[in-house]
């Protein structure tokens, strides 16, 4: 019944993380949780890679980070989107949607599962 989790297509992680931070700032663990919840566990992301992604986007100026207290009252590093990050998210999600639409067009309608 449950299928094996999917590995991410190259470059998609950035987009997902930006999206995770779109409406509120989160720490790394929060981002992981949010992604898991949203995808229903369908995406397999090595968590270390997720942190690398966060740090890289911080370096690029898409994210800004501050240390704050987490919901369990421990010190944690929170990331939020900067203006540049927001622009990047808009551009990337638009590009990705076009890309997916094109791929779906090529694939045609999904085969109907056999009844039974």
């Amino acid at each position, binding site marked *: 019944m449950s299928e094996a989790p999917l590995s991410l297509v190259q470059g998609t992680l950035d987009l997902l993380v930006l999206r995770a931070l779109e409406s509120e700032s989160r720490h790394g663990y929060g981002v992981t949780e949010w992604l898991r919840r949203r995808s229903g566990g369908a995406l397999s992301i090595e968590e270390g890679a997720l942190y690398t992604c966060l*740090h890289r986007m911080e370096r690029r100026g898409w994210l800004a980070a501050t240390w704050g207290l*987490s919901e369990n009252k421990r010190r944690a590093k929170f990331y939020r989107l900067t203006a540049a990050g927001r622009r990047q998210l808009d551009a990337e999600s638009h590009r990705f949607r076009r890309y997916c639409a094109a791929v779906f067009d090529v694939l045609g309608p999904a085969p109907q599962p056999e009844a039974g």
Partner: protein
Amino acid sequence: MRSRLRQEVARDVDAEIAYHLDRTVADLESAGLEPDRARATARRRFGRVSRYRRELIRLSNITRHRRQRRSHMVAIVEMLRSVRRRLFRSPGYAAAVVAILALGIGMNGVTFRLADRILLRPPAHIVDADTVKRIWVHREVHGTRYDMRAHAYADLEDLFSADSLDQVVASARRSAVLGRGASAERVITVAAAGGYFPMLGTRPYRGRFFGPDDDRPDREIVAVVSHAFWKGRLGGEADAIGRRLELDGRAVTVVGVAPAGFTGAELQRVDVWLPLEPWSAVSEAPWRTHRGYYWLQGLARLAPGVDAESAGVEATVLHRRARGGQADSRYDPEAEISFAPLLAAHGPNRPPEARIALLLVGVAAIVLLIACFNVAHLVLARMTWRRHEYSLRLALGISRGRLAGEILLESLVLAFLGATVSLILVAWGSELMRALLLPRLAWSASSLDPAGIAFVVSAAAFAGLAAAVLPMARVLRLDPRIGSRVDRAAGSRAKRVLVAAQAAFSTVLLIGAGLFVRSLDRVTDLDLGFDPERLVVVAMDLENGVSTDEGIAVADRVLDALRSRPEVTRAAAVQHDPFRDSASVSVRLASGEAPRADSRGPYFEPVGAEYFETMGLEVLRGRGLESRDDRVGVEPVVVVNQAMAAFFWPTGDAIGECLFIGDDDAPCSRVIGVVENAHRQQVIEERQLLYYVPLVHAAFGREVPKIVARVDGDPEALAASLRAEVLEVAGARIRFAAVDPMADRVAPQLRSWRLGATLFGTMGILALVVAALGLYTALAFDVATRWHEIGVRSALGATARQLVALVLRRGAGLALVGVACGLVIAFVTGVWIDDLLYDMTSRDPVTFLGVSTLLVVTGLFACWLPARRASAADPATVLRSD
């Protein structure tokens, strides 16, 4: 610092990873996993922790760097804004600081450029100037060692075969007459061997240079002219190539123009270069073979990989071998040849200008230091004035580092503004200095070169830093809690040290200035025997083909004509160019003895009637030479100078004695008079033994004489009309007549003293003004900050005199301490300039006393204004205003 930040970054990364793992483990446990399995799962989900950790640390470090840099930029821009705001708020202060620093930096720029030209850089346009050397010979003649750069042709020829030398060329510098008649003028020529230009490697600006092919006796004479000559006298036209010039009555053809700034191997101006062989072919003297004519400079290019020392060893061997075959008793068999850099400043016989230039670099640095002290002091004073603002800003949480940064930035901004102003000063000042003090230096000083600008920029950076050090240190110690009181005391101590240091350094400079000025005075006051003022020397060049006898007849007519001019009070003929040429010939006494005083002579001077009167030489005993002595057939007579009389006849009177001058069969010349001593060629020379004979008895035969004339008026102004007279009387028999003030021959020898006195004097006065300003501002601020105290004292009954004394005590104390320190420094360091002074020591009490007095008086004057203001304080107003 760096490693601490790196540790911080690593700690943050660790904390971030730990938080994540802990949360994951906690979640898994609450979902029912065993702690061990939960931990293992968490790690598996994360991936290889150590690898990610490394990667995260690397990324974080980059991020941190970028952020830091950006925040620094923002801070500096912000500080610059605040500096600009503050400077606009007090334009007077800003202008004063800029002016002081501009003077200090400008002075440094000027001396740097002089030193750079004289000491550091080889003449322009020479390829690989390091391997081109000047040839020197060191020999002993009559017990005196001479370092000579003038050589006989044969002596240079000996070196042609040296393996350690690529090339040896001879050249001779002398003046020649360009054109003829009234429009004729003297130009500077260098006659050089054909290898000269190829060896220097220079490329012509126009046309071509001459080479070995042009340097044959039978060739037509070609000429290369300097860029300046081409621009000035040939109109800078392209068709100047091929133009014919008349030089010393001979036709030469211009074939090339040298690049601008090219002066050959020397730094002095040259107008025309000529090939040695054809140019010297007219000379009847055996200059190629005779080893007694030292008239050529020698230049050599070292063979690749050979150093000057080993070249010198080989050249010395060749030289001694060649000279050893000669029967010349006057030649030193131990003579040595050496190869020195082209710059005179690096060779033997270093000219005093080079020493002085070096000294000035140090002096200019002191001036800059004084300027920095002064600025630092102004900054401190302003800080005291606005201490509340600083305390307030500190209390508001602005860091000390930020305040110190602002001070540094302000200081640098002011220093660079000063440097910009000083560039004008540097261009203008170095040209002025070159024109006044080093007129023979062919160097266009008014256009700034990159090295000069680079120096000014670094001097500005230094000044900006130096002036900021003390104020920054003080800001870093500021404590907002204690308030301004304690801090004010500390600041005023620093200020007092600065004021005293300025006084001390000014003292040192002024003592230097005093010593040089007094030396110059002494040299100028030297009694040359003759009086060079209002004396002119007339020299004539005969037209080609005019015989010496005709020339002598012309000179006689010219002499008569000059004597009849109203502005000429006296005139006389003289064979040797006065204060330039002289000759010696062996002189015997009746006993057969031939006394000699080494280089002091005796020297022999054929002169006409009225010579002593014209020169201003007093006949001490007997009589002078008269026209009746100057005839063939009368008994030969001679007048000796005092030094010679004393040397030859130490016990008796010289008058009536016999001198045998020249050959063995020379007749007795009767001594008829003793005349006062005179200098022969140098302002500073040992007492010379001179004797004077009538022109007809000149030992080497007669030549066309020069004429000395004493005039009533300014020789400079009269020269033109006298020259016109000479040309008119002499007619077509002469090509050129020169009328030169005698003072022009003396002045160049005073130049190094004048250089020292002028430059030290200027810097000393500058330093004094800056230091006096420093003292004045110190006291003015002092009075202003103690205004309240002064008001209270006044209200308590202090008299005006007591208030003045209160201020004066402070100021005079500072000045005295500074001056005393300065005196000690000058006393100790003076030995460095001892040998640049004439006839005095660097510890000259008159100078020390004079300078101390000057400084104390200036100091008191600087105190006087603030003191007067204090005494005028009206207690009621003061106390009410507070």
